[in-house]
């Protein structure tokens, strides 16, 4: 065993040393500005921080959506569990619950909350995978191509609720540790697809509050870009 370890070290350490010699002397950290963090394809997007307090969003000059319609997508096998599924009721139509402080921001900016569309469940077993934003985008693309979800309208926001056990990442950021939810935008053949990703949270209140906050963030910043 000692010989084996020695051999490996003999092979790897010089190689690593050579590589390090060609690397820049000062690695640059990913640029993060406020609640905007790097996503998975070179850009930034807006998160709901893990420690968010459910307070109102700071108003900005960004154009807002005139209306918002929630399309809920419950992703992951654990949503098939009856106890877990019972959580869905409180998430299906965040606007209809009316008890989310973040939603008051929408009313103040006269953003109309349309009745939520029918939910979609994808009970694929993803619990052993890490789900990053590219996976979410690919899943949305597949669902739109197969018409599992309705085509996006100007008011559509797809809200993807991840089942418990799914590890969500966004760039170098991690769910629960760094963010409670995030929203992003992708351009597909079907059009501009605005979406919210909400990792599972043990607290039902935090879970729905994070989703509501991300939904409101989408309404206020539909392109998920840093305000000027």
């Amino acid at each position, binding site marked *: 065993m000692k010989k084996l370890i020695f051999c490996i070290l003999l092979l790897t350490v010089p190689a690593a040393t050579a590589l390090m010699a*060609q690397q820049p002397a000062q*690695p640059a950290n990913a640029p993060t500005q406020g609640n905007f963090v790097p996503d*998975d394809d070179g850009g930034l997007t807006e998160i709901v921080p893990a420690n968010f307090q459910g307070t109102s969003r700071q108003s900005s000059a960004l154009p807002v959506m005139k209306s918002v319609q929630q399309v809920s997508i419950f992703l992951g096998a654990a949503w098939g569990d009856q106890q877990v599924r019972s959580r869905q009721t409180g998430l299906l139509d965040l606007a209809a619950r009316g008890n989310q402080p973040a939603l008051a921001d929408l009313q103040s900016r006269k953003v109309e909350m349309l009745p939520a569309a029918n939910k979609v469940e994808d009970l694929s077993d993803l619990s052993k995978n890490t789900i990053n*934003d590219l996976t979410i985008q690919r899943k949305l693309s597949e669902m739109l191509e197969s018409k599992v979800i309705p085509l996006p309208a100007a008011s559509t926001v797809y809200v993807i609720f991840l089942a418990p056990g799914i590890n969500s990442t966004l760039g170098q950021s991690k769910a629960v540790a760094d963010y409670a939810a995030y929203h992003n935008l992708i351009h597909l053949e079907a059009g501009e697809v605005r979406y919210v990703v909400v990792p599972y949270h043990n607290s039902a209140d935090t879970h729905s509050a994070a989703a509501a906050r991300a939904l409101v963030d989408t309404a206020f910043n539909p392109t998920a870009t840093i305000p000027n």
Partner: protein
Amino acid sequence: MLRSPRRILLVLIAVLLALPLNLAAQCGVERESVKTGTDPDAGLVNLNSPTNTTIANMRAFAMPNPIPPNNRVAPAETTVWVINATLTLFKLESDSDYHLVIQDAAGNTMITEIPAPTCVGSTSPFLSGITNARQKFDAMFTATTSFQTVNVPVQVTGVGMFDFAHGQTGAAPNQIELHPVLDIIFNPSTTANFSLAASPTSLSVTQGQSGSTTITTGVTGGFNSAVSLSASGLPAGVTASFTPSSIAAPGGGNSTLKFTASSTAATGTSSVTVTATGGGVTHTTTVSLTINAAATPNFAVSASPTSLSVTQGASGSSTISTTVSGGFNSAVSLSASGLPAGVTASFNPTSIAAPGSGSSTLTFTASSTATTGTSTVTITATGGGVTHTTTVSLTITAAATPNFTVSASPTSLSVTQGASGSSTISTTVSGGFNSAVALSASGLPSGVTASFNPTSIAAPGSGSSTLTFTASSTATTGTSTVTVTATGGGVTHTTTVSLTITAVTGGGTQLLGNPGFENGSSSPSPWTVATTQATNRVINNTSTEPPHSGLWDAWLDGHGSTTTDSILQQVTIPANTAAVTLSFWLHIDTAETSTTTAFDTLSVQVRNTSGTVLSTLATFSNLDHATGFQQKTFDLTSFKGQTIQIFLQGSEDTTLQTSFVVDDFALNVTAGTELIGNGGFENGSANPAPWTVTSTHTPLDIINNSSSEPPHTGTWDAWMDGFGATTTDTVLQQVTIPSTATAATLSFWLHIDTAETSTTTAFDTLTVQVRDSSGAVLSTLATFSNLNHATGYQQKSFDLTSFKGQTVQIFFQGKEDSTLQTSFVLDDVSLQVAQ
């Protein structure tokens, strides 16, 4: 602390294996096909002709809106670009791309990305280039998920791609990237070299004009030499010049390449190769040059109208217009060809003055003998060496021939023997006809004469004449076709009138006055005419509703609005008549379309002098409409001896007219032969013959002149019963009804009064019978009783025609019971026979 060798081993294995496993799994989604060359437009990218450019040039491209998700925007995304710049940042993205930020000397940045070959489809034309670039980069650096800062000169070759803006580090303002990178050369400046680029890379030049593009060179690696420039691949008729003709040492700078196209330069698009040579190095780039044709001076000619018709001896015109283009500036002369014989053409003005836009009136003049038919006349316009033509379709029509037409209204009429009727003959001239038209009639039936008033239509020949047919009492009955011949100006035309001569209905005496309304509207008497319309136009002589004969008729309704029109005439029908016949001619036309509903009606009634309806003879309606007149006949024999009103009333509803036109009434009474002798018992009681009078009462007291039971007329009557005791009175007279009788009518006037009070029991009776000469009852005509008592007399009539050829007794028998008298008073007995 890692104190165990086994732990060290595990950590090392994890370090070496974990990262590659993570990276291999993820590829991008957004515009991924364009980024990796699997989009449908990937074949548009010319991999064999990289174009040198700069970061500044790339950032100058306009950002497309929208960005197509799976297609390319030319030329930025269909060109392989080569950029010399400095690599400043790089990072391994989660989508496995190497995200490289390059920067020029001015600080302008843009993103270049090297996808992971595992994310590139095998059909991508970029796969080998991507693999090459990835390997070269990996040989130089190790990209991690964090940005690393470097400062390395690079020459990056890649395909342009516009990304969606989402906060990418190092992004150009227009989001242009080189994505994918197909080649990367680190530290290219170690070799003295220069770059070459053109901007714009494509331009269009019109024949006879010029255009330019800027050729830019940039030096690297200590390159220090003048760079000479040349162009090749020019289309015929195009020259190229560089200002300056070469870039002075050290070789970096700009030169304006000017293309000058002659007026005859070959049109189309060419790829012009620009070659730059200096310091032993040669580079080329291409410029796409399109030569467009210059506008040619020209004009167009048109005619309006493009077709016209001209009558022989007349003229017509069309406007010829010209419009110029392409700088045309010349007078345009006009001419016409293809004219039919006998037609001339003239232009006013004869030519369109320079610069050639304007109009001219083309007049065709046809002689009176010009060839008729349609010809295509070609208009030729010539000016400035250019000739154009247009055509006008010219139709020459024959001049009109003087002529006239003749017509009759009505075209058929009926005239009763001994009467007359008329039709209006009208003529209309055309083609300049100007002559009097003489009229004549032929084909008249025997006993009928025809006269025209006026006898001819005065020149120019338009007008009308009343043709009156007068039938003698012996005129031949039946229908004839009378030909009316009109002759004038050497032209003869004919029309026909269907003339029907009818026999006098029933003969005898006609009782109605003014039966054809020929007294006119001012004196309709003895008709009484009423209307609910504001204007009474019932008595009519207009051609709208022509009469059956004569000039006038009675036109009821026809207003298309709520109307009630009526005519009535009161007449007394003698009692001693054998037959009474009412006849008239009726025409009905209507705008109603229903075939089931009688919206408008004409009621024909007999009324008494108080206006009480005695009988409705007929009701006609819009459903009975028909062309021409129809004769209607009704038997009014039952009204003989009465004064009655002949009453016609037309009632029209709110809409859609129905006209009821009546004419030529006749109420003919036939005076028959009276078979009863002493019908009024005026011979007195002493000589009642030929009546036979018997009674069970003594003395015989039937023929009466007392005031107790006064007669109907005269002094005497026959008073049967009236004793209030059991009595049988009989009055009879024997007559022979001729076998040739056409009608035999028994009538008498009867008065009944009684002391009986019953309203249900006939205690006392009068029986009227026809018996044979032996007294055998042939028919009981009626039985009256105390129940029929009434003040005054009532006339009773019975048809005895069925007894013609027989000798019969007219038998009246009154029977009275033992009490309460009933008197049956008989007077004016008549038996009229018509033969």
